[in-house]
């Protein structure tokens, strides 16, 4: 007999909550970070080759798109760091109560935004 039993809906219907959202974002930012690190290496290679390259890259990074990419990477790194700390605490066996995990999840989400702003201001040497 052919197997015609349908598969019940899963990710389409399951409600998101803080800890599942942080978990999937952790994976996504992990992939973004790999791309980011590769691009940073390329960037260093390019600007070290000639002064023209340096000027061109500078122009690009000062454009809106360039700034958006830099800020995006900064957020991605911030998120990954904070989420990784959360994972480390969980590996020690703490923070598994639903309430605690929600609070730590929210800290990761909002903390990553705050950290991005702080890093941006630091880079602009406003702080």
């Amino acid at each position, binding site marked *: 007999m052919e*197997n*015609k*039993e*349908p*598969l*019940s*809906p*899963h*990710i*389409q*219907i*399951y*409600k998101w*909550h803080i*800890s*599942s959202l942080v*978990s999937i974002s952790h994976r996504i930012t992990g992939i973004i970070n790999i791309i980011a690190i590769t691009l940073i290496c390329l960037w260093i290679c390019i600007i070290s080759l000639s002064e023209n390259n340096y000027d061109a890259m500078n122009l690009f990074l000062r454009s809106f798109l360039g700034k958006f990419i830099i800020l995006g990477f900064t957020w991605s790194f911030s998120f990954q760091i904070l989420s990784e700390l959360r*994972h480390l605490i*969980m*590996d*020690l*066996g703490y923070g*598994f*109560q*639903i309430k605690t*995990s929600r609070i730590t999840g929210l800290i990761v989400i909002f903390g990553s935004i705050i950290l991005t702003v702080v890093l941006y201001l630091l880079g602009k040497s406003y702080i």
Partner: protein
Amino acid sequence: MVKLNLPENSKVKRGNYFRDKTGSNNIRKVNVYRWNPSTKENPRIDTYEVDMNNCPSKVLDILNKIKNEIDPTLAYRRSCAHGVCGSCAMNIGGKNGLACTTPHSEIDGDIDIYPLPHLKVKRDLIGDLDGLYKQYQSIEPWLKSNSKTETTEIYQSKEDRAKLDGAYECIMCACCSTSCPSYWWNGDKYLGPAVLLQAYRWIVDSRDDERKARLKKVADELKLYRCHTILNCTSACPKGLNPAKAIAEIKKMLATANF
């Protein structure tokens, strides 16, 4: 393999609409997943208008009302109706739980009822849990004692007994395992929260003599370490247990053990 979309034969279509015939002024719409194995059609969502003035407080009461008064063809599992047997586990309002212990007042708007996620559907709200039971069998959930005397009881201190609290209460309803995205994508290899909680229950039992063997058996990239602390399991558990914590404890034991 991660497959986000449902296969072609599993795509859900709009189904029938059952208008209220009681003339009640307190109506709630209940959307229920339906699939009939004797037809070749895809699953569908039937919508029922249910008179809430004459309906007790739990989601299972709604289902009983639909089956008794509106549509007797609806199929679902239920037995004790008191959160002890675990038969009526299903996905209610986007979250797994027992229909008999979930109050419908906690759900806003229309009530969506689906079978437990990512299972082969046998009919309507009945999912196939064979795989999970086989995995449960694989951890050998019984006491293994080397003691030669089988006639005397094995004493356990109060402290040792307390270690089983939060693990022995599990009713194997599968709410946790079927809420876990890791279990959805790797359910054939990853044991899932329900079975790992039971594995933990036997690992920490002071009367059991096979602790090391049990730990070794479960120490596997796929069987255990597919848990990425998403915590869907803990938030789904209708008995308020914490499978994610139990899995973390197993990982900790393995990290500190020297075999």
